């Protein structure tokens, strides 16, 4: 018989073998195909349930000892003596996880609509590249004068309001930051990060970088393509490149500033929120709402001071100054706008860092 009563008496706890030797335990499990066991369904069921009726005394059942076919093993915790990979390698793993998720499965799932929107924005951002190529191909100088690389067009590629900073870049930032930190808080996956040798700074830094790099892939790559399309189609020489490279560089800097600002505001919102949608809508309403309010005030009262509250307008003002286009804000110096951008980033990063450092590693 192989019912629980007949299992061989167990060895005392202190004489048990070390945890690594698991063989005795395997034998201790009653084998229902044992030779000595004329096992029937009835006996098997009753052996396991230990009951014959459905309504025996419940309190007794609850305190009944567990089935006696188990053993208790000593746990010995050994320190792990391996070599930890360098910090950059661990961080690279996080970054890679987020970046590759845009392109293929098996990494962070960004959601099909978001990836679709990224693709649409990328293609739409290439409009000036396409027009430059077209003007080079058909040799239309009129078309080229509208679309070719010049100061205003470089500014417009990154900082133009309609459609780029109304429909493209803030929406992309909003969609990206939506769940980046808040989803970790919501699903409790932050515990997966913090149970590994990752500091919180690394965690949030890589989140930041991954969101920024994805935006950079759209804004900076299309900008570079635009510049190279001009060189390729118009056969520009070194003289032209040396001439225009400083303003190209200035455009890159203002694009970096734009990406950094949108990302830090968005991530700060993502860290204060639990939901997925709130950070996205909030980022959009900050960018577009302050713009509309400042537009009302400057149009009505001829006062541009509210533009200092609008992230987009501050970035545009700074961009105009460093790229060197005609400024459209003329009531104050661009350094005020720069100061405002710095202040916005400082506040956002402060919120982000305090929220992440005080983040509880539980599912909320």
């Amino acid at each position, binding site marked *: 018989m192989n019912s629980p009563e007949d299992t061989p008496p167990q060895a005392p706890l202190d004489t048990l073998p070390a945890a690594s030797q698991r063989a005795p335990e395997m034998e201790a499990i009653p084998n229902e195909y044992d030779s000595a066991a004329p096992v029937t369904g009835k006996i098997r069921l009753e052996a396991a349930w230990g009951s014959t009726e459905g309504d025996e005394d419940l309190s007794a059942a609850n305190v009944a000892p567990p089935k006696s076919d188990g053993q208790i093993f000593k746990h010995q915790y050994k320190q792990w003596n391996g070599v930890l990979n360098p910090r950059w390698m661990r961080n690279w793993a996080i970054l890679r996880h987020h970046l590759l998720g845009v392109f293929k499965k098996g990494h962070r799932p960004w959601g099909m609509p978001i990836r679709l929107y990224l693709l649409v924005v990328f293609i739409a951002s290439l409009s000036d590249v396409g027009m430059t190529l077209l003007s080079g191909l058909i040799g239309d100088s009129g078309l080229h004068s509208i679309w070719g690389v010049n100061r205003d067009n470089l500014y417009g590629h990154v900082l133009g309001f309609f459609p780029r900073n109304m429909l493209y870049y803030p929406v992309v930032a909003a969609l990206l930051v939506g769940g980046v930190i808040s989803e970790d808080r919501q699903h409790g996956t932050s515990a997966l990060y913090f149970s590994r040798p990752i500091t919180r700074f690394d965690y949030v830094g890589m989140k930041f970088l991954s969101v920024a790099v994805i935006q950079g892939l759209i804004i900076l790559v299309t900008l570079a393509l635009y510049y190279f399309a001009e060189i390729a189609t118009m056969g520009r020489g070194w003289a032209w490149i040396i001439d225009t490279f400083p303003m190209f560089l200035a455009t890159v800097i203002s694009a970096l500033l734009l990406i950094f600002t949108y990302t830090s505001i968005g991530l700060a919102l993502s860290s204060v929120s639990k939901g997925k949608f709130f950070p996205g809508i909030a980022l959009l309403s900050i960018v577009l709402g302050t713009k509309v*309010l400042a537009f009302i005030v400057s149009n009505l009262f001829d006062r541009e001071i509210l533009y200092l509250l609008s992230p987009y307008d501050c970035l545009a003002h700074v961009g105009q100054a460093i790229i060197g286009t005609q400024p459209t804000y003329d009531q104050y110096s661009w350094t005020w706008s720069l100061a405002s951008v710095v202040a916005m980033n400082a506040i956002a990063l402060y919120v982000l860092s305090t929220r992440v450092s005080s983040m509880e590693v539980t599912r909320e």
Partner: protein
Amino acid sequence: MARKPDSIYRAFDRKASAIVEFTLRQYRTKKSTWVVLGVGFIALALIFLIYIDVMSSEFESIDNDGDSTDYDNDGYPRGQEIRLGTDPWDSESHPGLFDTPIEPEPASMYINEDDFDWDITSKLGTQTTGIDDDGDCLNSNKTSSQKDTNNNGIPCDIIVEYFKSSDGNVYTFVSADSGVDEDPDEDAYSREAIHLAFVLSIGKLGFVLLLGIFLPLFMATGLIRDEMTSGTMHFMLAKPIARSEVFLYRTLGYLGIVWPYVIVLGILGALISGFVGSGDAFFRFADLGVWLAIIFATMMATLVYGMLFNALGVLWKYGIILAIPFAAWELGMALLSMGAPDAFLLRFSVIGWALMIVDSAAMLVWPNIDLFILMGNWGGGGDGGWSFDSSLEGSAPLDFFSSKPGLGLSPFLGAIIATLVLMFQAVLFWFIGGALFKGKEIQ
């Protein structure tokens, strides 16, 4: 279960009020509700502060016709010399050399001395209007041809002509006799124009556009979707209540917090602009009609967008991604309606109809707003030889922010039709949302 007799209120206090009350209490526990409402309040308050600041400061008075200047340095302003017939360019010719010498008048008498006196209506055809207040046109020294520089046979008047051009639009032509209404009061005009433009802009962009889109975006998208995601929807759907009813009552609960908020903000706006605004009256009662329309239009917008975004949330887990491009489209439509209120595209938007209500009310309450803009654009000297822009401050923004209700309807009819269309849209989105929800499999 035995039902005891109820009062009428208690009798109706069943399903609908349970879900509405539940939704309101749920909003109350969410931090994001208070953040959104608070930020909306602060943003509008900021604009109102700037408005109060502008209204409490003086608009600079400009001497549009230059007759306060003493060109020949004889101590007499040009206007006085012209009136009395001496040569304003000759320091040896001035009223002080008269037999009975006349004392020089202060230059301020010749600033803003000839304000608008227009008394016409904006209908097709030619009308004449205008009074020469300061007498520099009716001056007896002038010949009759000098008094009638616009050649219509009437001395010292202004011709205002409304005509329809071949493209179907109505244009205006203003031609004044020299010296009529040529030096208007900038402070009075600009104060009034900026006040009107402020009410229209804050109403259309601040209330109907920003509050109308962002409140539903924040608060209505998750009404059903959040419950479905968290699994708490099961409690509600296990009860004998149709899903489209749940959809409707949840939306009503959302309106229960959004509508009072809009009404309170609107009343605050009406009070501030009524007390601070231009004019001699203690309170601008007439503006209340426009504010009423602004509040009403915002309520309709939040209703329609609420139903729509709620339906988008039911439709798809990523409903917000559908809602964001739609919100951007509506922003574009709002700007389009400022420039081209008759644009065909506006009929496919929500905001176009909502803004039509505000435009209609503005037409009803301020029937002469077109004429007022025309006066400001003319600005006292738009005729003939003046090459610079003589329009007064405030007329351009007022021109931008005000527009005629579309479809060529009378204001009253326009408001009613716009309201009906918005109601139809709300019911349509409710039906769509309810049908989507009804056919939705919920795990």
